[in-house]
């Protein structure tokens, strides 16, 4: 019965809390699929990364790794697009889960935190957060957007 008691308490807090939880971020719909791996992105909202094009179409990925895989080989996945057509790239900050500009973000490589696709580049908006995460989660390296090369992606397979 203890479990139920806790649940009871937890829920009631929420009954009152749930009015304030609507924090809108550009979210993928249930039908959006990661163009790299085909996974339905909506199932793993925490890891979502997005690319918005100048024609205001958008693509979503289930992690920074697939985003970079795409970014380095746009020809393969969207033959009609290229890097120049991109207007914005966003990733979710690991701690806040809020979208940040990927080109300004930092990525921790080799940590013990796995994404839906296994090894992942964990994104952060702030340098200090990235460093703290690196310590907490046995990360290997903090990378900037341009440091993530196809060779690094290869090493993560």
């Amino acid at each position, binding site marked *: 019965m203890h479990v139920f008691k806790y649940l009871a308490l937890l829920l009631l807090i929420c009954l009152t809390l749930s009015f304030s939880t609507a924090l809108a971020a550009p979210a993928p719909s249930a039908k959006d*699929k990661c*163009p790299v791996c*085909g996974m339905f992105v909506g199932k793993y909202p925490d890891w979502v990364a997005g690319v918005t094009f100048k024609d205001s179409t958008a693509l979503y990925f289930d992690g920074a790794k697939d985003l970079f895989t795409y970014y380095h080989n746009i020809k393969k996945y969207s033959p009609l697009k290229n890097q120049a057509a991109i207007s914005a790239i966003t990733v979710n900050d690991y701690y806040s889960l809020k979208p940040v500009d990927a080109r300004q973000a930092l990525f921790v490589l080799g940590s013990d935190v796995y994404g839906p696709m296994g090894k992942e580049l964990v994104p952060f908006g702030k340098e200090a957060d990235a460093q703290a995460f690196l310590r907490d989660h046995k990360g290997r390296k903090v990378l900037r957007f341009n440091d993530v090369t196809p060779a690094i992606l290869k090493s993560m397979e």
Partner: protein
Amino acid sequence: MIQHPAILALTIASLMTGLMLIYAGWYGTWILDKWDLHSGSELQLNLERRTYLISVILSYALLFQIASLFLYIFTADNLHSQFTGAMCAAGSLGVNSFGYPVLILKILNCLLAGVWLIINHVDTRGYDYPLIKAKYGLLNVLVPLVLLEVVFQFVYFFNLKADVITSCCGSLFSTDKHSIAGEIAGLPSGPMQAAFFGIMAATVVCGMVFFLKKRGGYLFAALSALTFLVSSAALVSFICLYFYELPSHHCPFCILQKEYHYIGYALYATLLGGTVSGLGVGVLMPFSTCSSLSGVIPNIQRRLAATTLIMYLLFTLIVVWRMLSTSFTLG
């Protein structure tokens, strides 16, 4: 081991099938050894009675086998959320090295059991049971394979551990991977489409000729088998892409999911059904000269050929419908 009712159900089903087949196989070898139709001895009468039992067991075993093949795939798909990195059955099957062998064995056993039942059906129409040796010879091949499947499936389930990191179908069926799956995924879609529609057309034409003129049975059977292989490769290489509307997702398992309206089950069922009856035509060819079966085999072969044609045409129809109805285009 993950506790899941479906795993329990599959294990029970496979154990039952295994036990039933051991029993059937045991009497099968006995029949191979002692069969003498001209004798009216009690042993012979006893053996003849056993053949009924073995037919019944094999019919049920095939039903169980087909059901368990699909339940197995469905369960693997259902369990993917338990493993990091998996997004469909492909990932769950890759959790340990037994997942895929079990799947291949299940498909193979379904095909073999189907062919066995076709031979059995024909054999019981000939008053001198002319196929008895062939039939029980094949049974001796089938039984060890089913037992192997039972063991492998048990080992696979037993070693399933949650939170294992496995690879997703996206990387498994990636065109950059140097594996069989990767190679198949990497087959160029243009030539593959040509090959798929070519072989389908050839099989259909050959099937029509066989149906109308009763010629080219071996060729038709060989083409049906080839169609199975080519279609499987085509599924990975380009057909899936139309269902996913993604130019690089080659996974043959994701189409089994709810998001794709379980269309994969229809595709695989028609493909398997067509192949079994197509193979049946070929297997019966050497026996069509048998005097006691000369009136029986041609009719059954025609019916089998018609089944194959219908199944394969349905398969092609689903594929073509999807290719035409989606706005997605390749390349």
